[in-house]
């Protein structure tokens, strides 16, 4: 599956717990695409602020630098910069709590 083949209007992402900070996108996401986040409570929609590869994480809210983020109700790391909703969350802006 390449980015070019994914020119749909919206793409899905999976949020597993109510308190999660991020969702996992289920397809390649192009910057500007609408992402439909399905979760245990309500669905939400947000706009991708950049390209997001499949199975990578998208920020569901704005976060300050140094915030602990959750996925699957588990602390997964600390932000190393401010992050906006719709941005990619990965090794460039999130580090392990053990580091």
């Amino acid at each position: 599956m390449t980015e070019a083949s994914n020119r749909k209007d919206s793409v899905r992402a999976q949020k597993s717990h109510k308190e999660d900070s991020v969702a996992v996108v289920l397809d390649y996401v192009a910057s500007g695409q609408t992402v439909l986040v399905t979760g245990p409570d309500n669905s939400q929609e947000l706009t991708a602020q950049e390209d997001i590869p499949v199975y990578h994480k998208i920020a569901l809210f704005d976060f300050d630098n140094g915030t602990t983020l959750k996925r699957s109700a588990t602390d997964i790391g600390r932000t190393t910069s401010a992050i906006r909703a719709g941005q990619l969350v990965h090794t460039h802006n999130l580090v392990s709590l053990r580091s």
Partner: protein
Amino acid sequence: MILSAHQHKADELLNTLSDHDRPICAITLDQAGRDALTFRTLAVRAGAKLLWDLSRQRRERMPWSDLFLALECGMSDPSSSVFANPIVGRVTDQLVAAGGAAVIGETLEWLGSEGALSKRAVTAEIEERIKQAVERRVTLARKSGIDLLGNNPNKANVAAGLTTIEDKAIGSVVKSGTSPVKAFLEYGDRHDVAGLAAMDGPSYTPESLTGLIAAGAQMSLFTSGVGNSFVGRLAPSLKITANRETAERLPEQFDFCCAEAVRNPDRIEQVVENLIFRICDVASGALTFGEILGEGDEVIARFGETL
């Protein structure tokens, strides 16, 4: 049927197992005068009698809450961590809520999530043992020159979307669902009560499954992303994948495909229910591919511990 070279070893096992309500016998090389062909004939005759008795057993109807499931994953990919394992987790939650039991092992897969897992322990002792089990294996790995806290997640993990060690661990631990951890087991210990148990065991699937089944599980739920043909021998392994390409490429390996949940996450509840039906099917006698194909074995470490 116990097959042994030595009568005294067989007698030890016979004594240990004699209070279980299962027919049992032992055939030894000692009995056969150290002759392999005589040994074979003795074993065939004894086996014939056992099978004649066993075939008289009839199934009794039981609630699904009587089940004890072992949870295993191998050759995982993102479809495992995002779909197959969470679906197994939901099934586990429902089983435990109904009064059933489950066990999760593969201790090093907890690394990164041992805080979250240990917080679910019902006692401080269990909480501590979960953390210690991980620490002990990390140290053991270090002694073999493997640094599990170094390049972890590795390049391939990062390219697949995993960001931190905590993030990576979620994909595996999520198989256990959300219920409290009622018991901590050493490798191969029995789990005789309801609820979820955590077992300190290797990540190496063949040994992992042997230990989990030894706890008393009647079946394992075994997820895979890219495909893994191994199954247990003492109890059926219900093979599960959420990777449609894998399921299509390996139609005689997987007993349940939940790729539908990937295409349509709104269908997850239905997929969970379908998996529960499949589990009850297998528990009622439906064969898994592993059993049909005679794939699988039980494996016990003989050269010291496996990580």
